[in-house]
Protein backbone atom coordinates (compact mmCIF):
# COMPACT_ATOMS: atom_id res chain seq x y z
CA UNK A 1 0.00 0.00 0.00
CA UNK A 2 1.37 3.37 -1.04
CA UNK A 3 1.19 6.32 1.27
CA UNK A 4 -0.49 9.59 0.18
CA UNK A 5 2.78 11.39 0.72
CA UNK A 6 4.72 9.14 -1.63
CA UNK A 7 2.04 9.33 -4.36
CA UNK A 8 1.88 13.07 -3.99
CA UNK A 9 5.65 13.22 -4.26
CA UNK A 10 5.58 11.35 -7.57
CA UNK A 11 2.50 13.08 -9.07
CA UNK A 12 2.94 16.63 -7.80
CA UNK A 13 4.58 17.66 -11.08
CA UNK A 14 1.59 16.35 -13.03
CA UNK A 15 -0.85 18.03 -10.69
CA UNK A 16 0.97 21.37 -10.89
CA UNK A 17 0.94 21.17 -14.67
CA UNK A 18 -2.83 20.60 -14.53
CA UNK A 19 -3.23 23.55 -12.19
CA UNK A 20 -1.07 25.72 -14.45
CA UNK A 21 -3.23 24.81 -17.45
CA UNK A 22 -6.41 25.61 -15.51
CA UNK A 23 -5.00 29.01 -14.58
CA UNK A 24 -3.67 29.73 -18.08
CA UNK A 25 -6.94 28.79 -19.79
CA UNK A 26 -8.93 30.85 -17.30
CA UNK A 27 -6.72 33.92 -17.77
CA UNK A 28 -6.93 33.65 -21.55
CA UNK A 29 -10.72 33.28 -21.46
CA UNK A 30 -11.21 36.14 -19.00
CA UNK A 31 -8.96 38.48 -21.00
CA UNK A 32 -10.52 37.69 -24.38
CA UNK A 33 -14.02 37.62 -22.93
CA UNK A 34 -13.59 40.96 -21.18
CA UNK A 35 -12.31 42.69 -24.30
CA UNK A 36 -15.16 41.29 -26.41
CA UNK A 37 -17.70 42.00 -23.66
CA UNK A 38 -16.49 45.61 -23.39
CA UNK A 39 -17.30 46.00 -27.09
CA UNK A 40 -20.67 44.24 -26.81
CA UNK A 41 -21.91 46.20 -23.75
CA UNK A 42 -21.90 49.66 -25.42
CA UNK A 43 -23.43 48.26 -28.62
CA UNK A 44 -26.27 46.70 -26.61
CA UNK A 45 -26.79 50.01 -24.78
CA UNK A 46 -26.35 52.68 -27.45
CA UNK A 47 -26.35 50.73 -30.72
CA UNK A 48 -29.97 51.28 -31.60
CA UNK A 49 -32.39 48.41 -32.02
CA UNK A 50 -31.14 47.18 -35.37
CA UNK A 51 -27.39 47.03 -34.80
CA UNK A 52 -27.87 45.74 -31.24
CA UNK A 53 -30.11 42.87 -32.37
CA UNK A 54 -27.46 40.31 -33.39
CA UNK A 55 -25.55 40.97 -30.16
CA UNK A 56 -28.74 40.73 -28.13
CA UNK A 57 -29.44 37.31 -29.67
CA UNK A 58 -25.84 36.20 -29.10
CA UNK A 59 -25.88 37.18 -25.43
CA UNK A 60 -29.27 35.62 -24.74
CA UNK A 61 -28.42 32.37 -26.52
CA UNK A 62 -25.07 32.00 -24.74
CA UNK A 63 -26.52 32.85 -21.35
CA UNK A 64 -29.33 30.38 -21.87
CA UNK A 65 -26.98 27.53 -22.82
CA UNK A 66 -25.22 25.26 -20.29
CA UNK A 67 -21.47 25.85 -20.37
CA UNK A 68 -20.83 22.17 -21.03
CA UNK A 69 -22.96 22.40 -24.18
CA UNK A 70 -20.96 25.48 -25.28
CA UNK A 71 -17.74 23.53 -24.78
CA UNK A 72 -18.91 20.46 -26.67
CA UNK A 73 -20.29 22.66 -29.45
CA UNK A 74 -16.99 24.58 -29.75
CA UNK A 75 -15.09 21.31 -29.96
CA UNK A 76 -17.28 19.26 -32.30
CA UNK A 77 -19.24 21.75 -34.42
CA UNK A 78 -16.34 23.40 -36.31
CA UNK A 79 -15.62 19.99 -37.85
CA UNK A 80 -18.72 20.55 -39.98
CA UNK A 81 -16.94 23.61 -41.44
CA UNK A 82 -13.76 21.62 -42.04
CA UNK A 83 -11.93 23.13 -39.07
CA UNK A 84 -10.75 20.85 -36.30
CA UNK A 85 -9.59 22.83 -33.28
CA UNK A 86 -7.57 21.18 -30.55
CA UNK A 87 -9.36 20.69 -27.23
CA UNK A 88 -7.51 23.58 -25.58
CA UNK A 89 -8.33 26.01 -28.40
CA UNK A 90 -11.97 24.93 -28.42
CA UNK A 91 -12.11 25.22 -24.65
CA UNK A 92 -10.66 28.73 -24.59
CA UNK A 93 -13.10 29.81 -27.31
CA UNK A 94 -16.09 28.39 -25.41
CA UNK A 95 -15.12 29.99 -22.10
CA UNK A 96 -14.30 33.31 -23.82
CA UNK A 97 -17.76 33.37 -25.40
CA UNK A 98 -19.30 32.57 -22.03
CA UNK A 99 -17.30 35.35 -20.36
CA UNK A 100 -18.01 37.86 -23.15
CA UNK A 101 -21.77 37.45 -22.88
CA UNK A 102 -21.68 37.89 -19.11
CA UNK A 103 -19.41 40.94 -19.21
CA UNK A 104 -21.44 42.42 -22.09
CA UNK A 105 -24.72 42.06 -20.24
CA UNK A 106 -23.50 43.34 -16.85
CA UNK A 107 -21.75 46.24 -18.59
CA UNK A 108 -25.01 47.12 -20.35
CA UNK A 109 -26.73 47.20 -16.97
CA UNK A 110 -24.07 49.52 -15.56
CA UNK A 111 -24.12 51.85 -18.60
CA UNK A 112 -27.91 52.15 -18.45
CA UNK A 113 -27.63 53.11 -14.77
CA UNK A 114 -25.38 56.12 -15.47
CA UNK A 115 -27.56 59.25 -15.17
CA UNK A 116 -28.31 60.86 -18.56
CA UNK A 117 -27.06 64.13 -17.06
CA UNK A 118 -23.54 62.72 -17.47
CA UNK A 119 -24.14 62.50 -21.21
CA UNK A 120 -25.48 66.08 -21.19
CA UNK A 121 -22.32 67.24 -19.43
CA UNK A 122 -20.04 65.37 -21.84
CA UNK A 123 -21.90 66.67 -24.89
CA UNK A 124 -21.93 70.20 -23.55
CA UNK A 125 -18.15 70.19 -23.31
CA UNK A 126 -17.99 69.07 -26.94
CA UNK A 127 -16.91 65.45 -26.53
CA UNK A 128 -17.73 63.25 -29.51
CA UNK A 129 -19.62 60.10 -28.60
CA UNK A 130 -16.66 57.70 -28.89
CA UNK A 131 -14.57 59.93 -26.63
CA UNK A 132 -17.42 60.28 -24.17
CA UNK A 133 -17.75 56.51 -24.09
CA UNK A 134 -14.05 56.02 -23.47
CA UNK A 135 -13.34 58.84 -21.01
CA UNK A 136 -16.66 59.34 -19.23
CA UNK A 137 -19.05 56.38 -19.49
CA UNK A 138 -16.84 53.27 -19.56
CA UNK A 139 -14.64 54.31 -16.60
CA UNK A 140 -17.77 54.74 -14.47
CA UNK A 141 -19.48 51.57 -15.69
CA UNK A 142 -16.39 49.36 -15.40
CA UNK A 143 -15.87 50.52 -11.83
CA UNK A 144 -19.48 49.68 -11.14
CA UNK A 145 -19.19 46.11 -12.45
CA UNK A 146 -15.85 45.35 -10.75
CA UNK A 147 -17.43 43.22 -7.96
CA UNK A 148 -19.50 41.36 -10.53
CA UNK A 149 -16.41 40.88 -12.64
CA UNK A 150 -14.72 38.97 -9.81
CA UNK A 151 -17.71 36.60 -9.80
CA UNK A 152 -17.43 36.10 -13.54
CA UNK A 153 -13.72 35.25 -13.25
CA UNK A 154 -14.48 32.73 -10.49
CA UNK A 155 -17.23 31.21 -12.65
CA UNK A 156 -14.75 30.82 -15.50
CA UNK A 157 -12.22 29.02 -13.29
CA UNK A 158 -14.92 26.62 -12.10
CA UNK A 159 -16.28 26.14 -15.61
CA UNK A 160 -12.78 25.31 -16.88
CA UNK A 161 -13.10 21.96 -15.03
CA UNK A 162 -15.73 21.02 -17.63
CA UNK A 163 -12.97 21.01 -20.25
CA UNK A 164 -11.98 17.61 -18.83
CA UNK A 165 -14.95 16.30 -20.85
CA UNK A 166 -13.14 17.03 -24.12
CA UNK A 167 -9.79 15.75 -22.85
CA UNK A 168 -8.03 18.94 -21.80
CA UNK A 169 -5.45 17.91 -19.21
CA UNK A 170 -6.39 20.58 -16.70
CA UNK A 171 -6.58 20.18 -12.95
CA UNK A 172 -9.68 17.99 -12.79
CA UNK A 173 -8.67 15.56 -15.54
CA UNK A 174 -5.19 15.25 -14.04
CA UNK A 175 -6.75 14.52 -10.68
CA UNK A 176 -9.03 11.89 -12.22
CA UNK A 177 -6.04 10.22 -13.83
CA UNK A 178 -4.14 10.07 -10.56
CA UNK A 179 -7.20 8.73 -8.75
CA UNK A 180 -7.64 6.13 -11.48
CA UNK A 181 -4.14 4.83 -10.87
CA UNK A 182 -4.02 5.06 -7.08
CA UNK A 183 -7.68 4.83 -5.96
CA UNK A 184 -6.98 7.61 -3.44
CA UNK A 185 -10.35 9.21 -4.22
CA UNK A 186 -10.85 11.19 -1.03
CA UNK A 187 -7.35 12.58 -0.83
CA UNK A 188 -6.92 13.79 -4.40
CA UNK A 189 -10.40 15.18 -4.96
CA UNK A 190 -10.02 17.06 -1.68
CA UNK A 191 -6.66 18.34 -2.88
CA UNK A 192 -8.15 19.42 -6.24
CA UNK A 193 -10.98 21.16 -4.40
CA UNK A 194 -8.48 22.97 -2.20
CA UNK A 195 -6.48 24.10 -5.23
CA UNK A 196 -9.60 25.47 -6.98
CA UNK A 197 -10.49 27.24 -3.76
CA UNK A 198 -7.01 28.73 -3.51
CA UNK A 199 -7.19 30.07 -7.06
CA UNK A 200 -10.63 31.59 -6.47
CA UNK A 201 -9.67 33.09 -3.12
CA UNK A 202 -6.68 34.68 -4.86
CA UNK A 203 -9.01 36.19 -7.47
CA UNK A 204 -11.28 37.46 -4.70
CA UNK A 205 -8.35 39.04 -2.88
CA UNK A 206 -7.12 40.64 -6.12
CA UNK A 207 -10.59 42.05 -6.75
CA UNK A 208 -10.77 43.42 -3.24
CA UNK A 209 -7.38 45.07 -3.63
CA UNK A 210 -8.37 46.62 -7.00
CA UNK A 211 -11.65 47.86 -5.59
CA UNK A 212 -9.89 49.55 -2.70
CA UNK A 213 -7.39 51.17 -5.03
CA UNK A 214 -10.07 52.57 -7.33
CA UNK A 215 -12.76 53.29 -4.80
CA UNK A 216 -11.73 56.96 -4.48
CA UNK A 217 -14.55 58.68 -6.28
Amino acid at each position, binding site marked *: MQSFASVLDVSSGLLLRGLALTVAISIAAVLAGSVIGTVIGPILTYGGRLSALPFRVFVDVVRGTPVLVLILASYYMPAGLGISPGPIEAGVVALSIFCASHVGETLRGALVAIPPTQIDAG*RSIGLTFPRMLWYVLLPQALRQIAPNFVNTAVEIVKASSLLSAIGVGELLLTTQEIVGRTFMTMEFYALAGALYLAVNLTIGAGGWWLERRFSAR
Partner: protein
Amino acid sequence: MQPILAIKGLTKSFGPNVILRDVDFEVFPADVVAIIGSSGSGKTTLLRCIDLLEEFEAGEIRLDGEQLGYRSSGGRRVRLPGRQLAMQRAKIAMVFQSYNLFPHLTALGNVMIGLTRVQHKPKAEARAIAEAWLERVGLAERRDHHPSALSGGQQQRVAIARALAMEPRLLLLDEVTSALDPELVQEVLLTIRRLAEAGTTMLIVTHEMRFARQVSTRTVFMDQGGILEEGPPEVIFGSPKTARLAEFLANVSH
Protein backbone atom coordinates in the same frame (compact mmCIF):
# COMPACT_ATOMS: atom_id res chain seq x y z
CA MET B 1 -22.66 95.25 -33.85
CA GLN B 2 -23.16 91.62 -34.76
CA PRO B 3 -24.91 89.54 -32.11
CA ILE B 4 -23.06 86.53 -30.69
CA LEU B 5 -26.30 84.61 -30.55
CA ALA B 6 -29.31 85.16 -32.81
CA ILE B 7 -32.45 83.06 -32.41
CA LYS B 8 -35.31 83.30 -34.89
CA GLY B 9 -38.70 81.60 -34.70
CA LEU B 10 -37.45 78.84 -32.38
CA THR B 11 -40.23 76.29 -31.83
CA LYS B 12 -40.01 73.07 -29.88
CA SER B 13 -42.54 70.57 -28.62
CA PHE B 14 -42.51 67.34 -26.66
CA GLY B 15 -45.32 65.34 -28.24
CA PRO B 16 -48.48 67.43 -28.08
CA ASN B 17 -46.97 69.93 -25.62
CA VAL B 18 -45.49 73.03 -27.19
CA ILE B 19 -42.56 74.03 -24.99
CA LEU B 20 -41.15 76.92 -27.01
CA ARG B 21 -43.23 78.91 -29.45
CA ASP B 22 -41.67 81.21 -32.00
CA VAL B 23 -38.91 82.60 -29.79
CA ASP B 24 -36.89 85.50 -31.24
CA PHE B 25 -33.91 86.62 -29.28
CA GLU B 26 -30.44 88.16 -29.63
CA VAL B 27 -27.43 88.27 -27.35
CA PHE B 28 -24.59 90.74 -27.87
CA PRO B 29 -21.00 90.58 -26.58
CA ALA B 30 -20.74 91.12 -22.79
CA ASP B 31 -24.51 90.88 -22.41
CA VAL B 32 -25.61 89.30 -19.16
CA VAL B 33 -29.15 88.17 -19.84
CA ALA B 34 -31.28 86.92 -16.96
CA ILE B 35 -34.20 84.72 -17.98
CA ILE B 36 -37.00 84.60 -15.44
CA GLY B 37 -40.41 82.96 -15.45
CA SER B 38 -42.37 80.27 -13.66
CA SER B 39 -41.53 76.56 -13.91
CA GLY B 40 -42.59 75.10 -17.22
CA SER B 41 -42.30 78.39 -19.08
CA GLY B 42 -39.57 76.92 -21.28
CA LYS B 43 -36.48 78.60 -19.81
CA THR B 44 -34.42 75.46 -19.36
CA THR B 45 -35.51 74.01 -22.71
CA LEU B 46 -34.40 77.24 -24.38
CA LEU B 47 -30.90 76.83 -22.92
CA ARG B 48 -30.82 73.14 -23.86
CA CYS B 49 -31.75 73.96 -27.46
CA ILE B 50 -28.97 76.56 -27.65
CA ASP B 51 -26.44 74.02 -26.30
CA LEU B 52 -27.75 71.49 -28.87
CA LEU B 53 -28.86 69.07 -26.16
CA GLU B 54 -32.39 69.09 -27.64
CA GLU B 55 -33.58 68.99 -31.22
CA PHE B 56 -36.20 71.54 -32.29
CA GLU B 57 -38.79 71.55 -35.05
CA ALA B 58 -38.60 75.03 -36.46
CA GLY B 59 -36.59 78.19 -36.37
CA GLU B 60 -32.86 78.72 -36.28
CA ILE B 61 -30.13 79.50 -33.82
CA ARG B 62 -27.00 81.23 -35.04
CA LEU B 63 -23.73 81.63 -33.15
CA ASP B 64 -21.54 84.34 -34.70
CA GLY B 65 -23.61 83.93 -37.85
CA GLU B 66 -23.13 80.14 -38.08
CA GLN B 67 -26.32 78.10 -37.98
CA LEU B 68 -26.30 75.63 -35.08
CA GLY B 69 -27.50 72.04 -35.15
CA TYR B 70 -28.95 71.92 -38.64
CA ARG B 71 -28.14 72.61 -42.24
CA SER B 72 -30.52 73.01 -45.16
CA SER B 73 -30.27 70.46 -47.89
CA GLY B 74 -32.58 70.92 -50.87
CA GLY B 75 -34.97 73.04 -48.83
CA ARG B 76 -35.10 70.52 -45.97
CA ARG B 77 -33.66 70.86 -42.49
CA VAL B 78 -31.16 68.15 -41.70
CA ARG B 79 -29.62 67.57 -38.25
CA LEU B 80 -25.83 67.80 -38.41
CA PRO B 81 -23.77 64.65 -37.83
CA GLY B 82 -22.43 64.02 -34.31
CA ARG B 83 -18.90 65.23 -34.98
CA GLN B 84 -20.10 68.64 -36.21
CA LEU B 85 -22.57 68.95 -33.35
CA ALA B 86 -19.68 68.29 -30.96
CA MET B 87 -17.57 71.02 -32.60
CA GLN B 88 -20.41 73.52 -32.25
CA ARG B 89 -21.17 72.52 -28.66
CA ALA B 90 -17.53 73.14 -27.74
CA LYS B 91 -18.04 76.86 -28.43
CA ILE B 92 -20.91 77.13 -25.97
CA ALA B 93 -20.59 76.13 -22.33
CA MET B 94 -23.36 75.17 -19.97
CA VAL B 95 -23.52 74.82 -16.21
CA PHE B 96 -26.31 72.62 -14.91
CA GLN B 97 -28.59 72.74 -11.90
CA SER B 98 -27.23 69.41 -10.60
CA TYR B 99 -23.55 70.25 -11.42
CA ASN B 100 -23.10 67.01 -13.45
CA LEU B 101 -19.41 66.69 -12.64
CA PHE B 102 -17.74 63.45 -13.70
CA PRO B 103 -17.55 61.45 -10.44
CA HIS B 104 -14.53 59.35 -11.47
CA LEU B 105 -12.34 62.40 -12.09
CA THR B 106 -10.82 64.86 -9.61
CA ALA B 107 -11.74 68.55 -9.71
CA LEU B 108 -8.67 69.12 -11.86
CA GLY B 109 -9.54 66.16 -14.10
CA ASN B 110 -13.03 67.55 -14.63
CA VAL B 111 -11.66 70.89 -15.80
CA MET B 112 -8.92 69.30 -17.93
CA ILE B 113 -10.97 66.74 -19.86
CA GLY B 114 -12.38 69.22 -22.38
CA LEU B 115 -8.99 70.84 -22.89
CA THR B 116 -7.23 67.55 -23.62
CA ARG B 117 -10.01 65.51 -25.29
CA VAL B 118 -11.83 68.23 -27.24
CA GLN B 119 -9.26 70.97 -27.81
CA HIS B 120 -6.36 68.48 -27.90
CA LYS B 121 -4.07 70.69 -25.86
CA PRO B 122 -0.88 69.10 -24.48
CA LYS B 123 -1.33 67.81 -20.95
CA ALA B 124 0.99 70.32 -19.28
CA GLU B 125 -0.73 73.28 -20.93
CA ALA B 126 -4.18 71.91 -20.10
CA ARG B 127 -3.12 71.42 -16.51
CA ALA B 128 -1.85 74.98 -16.22
CA ILE B 129 -5.11 76.39 -17.66
CA ALA B 130 -7.24 74.17 -15.41
CA GLU B 131 -5.26 75.12 -12.31
CA ALA B 132 -5.63 78.80 -13.16
CA TRP B 133 -9.41 78.42 -13.47
CA LEU B 134 -9.74 76.49 -10.23
CA GLU B 135 -7.74 79.28 -8.63
CA ARG B 136 -10.16 81.88 -10.04
CA VAL B 137 -13.17 80.08 -8.56
CA GLY B 138 -11.30 79.76 -5.26
CA LEU B 139 -10.70 76.01 -5.32
CA ALA B 140 -6.98 75.73 -6.03
CA GLU B 141 -6.35 73.70 -2.88
CA ARG B 142 -9.24 71.30 -3.60
CA ARG B 143 -8.06 70.38 -7.09
CA ASP B 144 -7.14 66.77 -6.26
CA HIS B 145 -10.48 66.00 -4.60
CA HIS B 146 -13.18 63.96 -6.27
CA PRO B 147 -16.65 65.55 -6.53
CA SER B 148 -17.98 63.34 -3.73
CA ALA B 149 -15.51 65.02 -1.36
CA LEU B 150 -16.69 68.54 -2.28
CA SER B 151 -19.69 70.53 -1.04
CA GLY B 152 -22.47 71.42 -3.47
CA GLY B 153 -21.21 74.96 -3.80
CA GLN B 154 -17.68 73.77 -4.46
CA GLN B 155 -18.91 71.25 -7.05
CA GLN B 156 -20.84 73.98 -8.81
CA ARG B 157 -17.78 76.22 -8.87
CA VAL B 158 -15.74 73.35 -10.39
CA ALA B 159 -18.51 73.02 -13.00
CA ILE B 160 -18.19 76.75 -13.76
CA ALA B 161 -14.41 76.38 -14.10
CA ARG B 162 -14.91 73.35 -16.37
CA ALA B 163 -17.23 75.39 -18.58
CA LEU B 164 -15.07 78.52 -18.77
CA ALA B 165 -11.74 76.75 -19.28
CA MET B 166 -13.00 75.98 -22.80
CA GLU B 167 -13.11 79.74 -23.51
CA PRO B 168 -16.65 79.54 -24.82
CA ARG B 169 -18.26 82.34 -26.82
CA LEU B 170 -21.28 82.04 -24.57
CA LEU B 171 -21.93 80.70 -21.08
CA LEU B 172 -25.32 79.21 -20.23
CA LEU B 173 -26.24 78.92 -16.54
CA ASP B 174 -29.28 76.78 -15.79
CA GLU B 175 -30.65 77.42 -12.30
CA VAL B 176 -27.16 76.87 -10.97
CA THR B 177 -28.03 77.66 -7.35
CA SER B 178 -31.36 75.78 -7.12
CA ALA B 179 -29.87 72.56 -5.78
CA LEU B 180 -27.63 74.29 -3.24
CA ASP B 181 -28.08 74.67 0.49
CA PRO B 182 -29.00 78.31 1.20
CA GLU B 183 -25.68 79.11 2.86
CA LEU B 184 -23.78 77.91 -0.22
CA VAL B 185 -25.72 80.03 -2.72
CA GLN B 186 -23.76 83.22 -2.13
CA GLU B 187 -20.34 81.76 -3.00
CA VAL B 188 -21.66 80.67 -6.40
CA LEU B 189 -23.48 83.95 -7.07
CA LEU B 190 -20.32 85.85 -6.19
CA THR B 191 -18.37 83.76 -8.72
CA ILE B 192 -20.93 84.56 -11.42
CA ARG B 193 -20.94 88.24 -10.53
CA ARG B 194 -17.15 88.38 -10.98
CA LEU B 195 -17.48 86.73 -14.40
CA ALA B 196 -20.15 89.24 -15.42
CA GLU B 197 -17.90 92.10 -14.39
CA ALA B 198 -15.07 90.55 -16.43
CA GLY B 199 -17.25 90.78 -19.56
CA THR B 200 -18.30 87.13 -19.96
CA THR B 201 -21.35 86.85 -22.21
CA MET B 202 -23.97 84.80 -20.43
CA LEU B 203 -27.53 83.64 -20.30
CA ILE B 204 -28.71 83.02 -16.77
CA VAL B 205 -31.86 81.11 -15.99
CA THR B 206 -32.54 81.82 -12.34
CA HIS B 207 -35.08 81.95 -9.55
CA GLU B 208 -32.92 84.38 -7.59
CA MET B 209 -34.80 87.55 -8.47
CA ARG B 210 -32.65 89.96 -6.54
CA PHE B 211 -29.54 88.49 -8.17
CA ALA B 212 -31.13 88.67 -11.64
CA ARG B 213 -31.94 92.32 -11.08
CA GLN B 214 -28.46 93.19 -9.84
CA VAL B 215 -26.29 91.24 -12.25
CA SER B 216 -28.14 91.31 -15.58
CA THR B 217 -27.77 93.93 -18.26
CA ARG B 218 -31.06 92.73 -19.75
CA THR B 219 -33.88 90.67 -18.26
CA VAL B 220 -36.23 88.41 -20.20
CA PHE B 221 -39.55 87.20 -18.86
CA MET B 222 -40.78 83.94 -20.37
CA ASP B 223 -44.34 82.68 -20.14
CA GLN B 224 -45.91 79.61 -21.76
CA GLY B 225 -42.98 79.02 -24.10
CA GLY B 226 -42.66 82.57 -25.39
CA ILE B 227 -40.90 85.78 -24.45
CA LEU B 228 -43.53 88.04 -22.95
CA GLU B 229 -41.37 90.98 -21.95
CA GLU B 230 -37.73 91.93 -22.16
CA GLY B 231 -35.76 95.02 -21.26
CA PRO B 232 -33.38 96.55 -18.74
CA PRO B 233 -33.79 94.94 -15.31
CA GLU B 234 -34.98 98.13 -13.67
CA VAL B 235 -37.86 98.33 -16.17
CA ILE B 236 -38.78 94.63 -16.01
CA PHE B 237 -38.72 94.55 -12.21
CA GLY B 238 -39.76 98.16 -11.63
CA SER B 239 -42.61 98.72 -14.08
CA PRO B 240 -43.91 95.52 -15.67
CA LYS B 241 -46.13 96.17 -18.70
CA THR B 242 -48.13 92.95 -18.64
CA ALA B 243 -50.43 91.73 -15.88
CA ARG B 244 -48.78 88.30 -16.13
CA LEU B 245 -45.32 89.64 -15.24
CA ALA B 246 -46.73 91.80 -12.45
CA GLU B 247 -48.47 88.73 -11.04
CA PHE B 248 -45.29 86.63 -11.34
CA LEU B 249 -43.19 89.26 -9.57
CA ALA B 250 -45.79 89.60 -6.82
CA ASN B 251 -45.75 85.83 -6.31
CA VAL B 252 -41.97 85.45 -6.10
CA SER B 253 -41.30 88.51 -3.97
CA HIS B 254 -42.57 86.90 -0.80
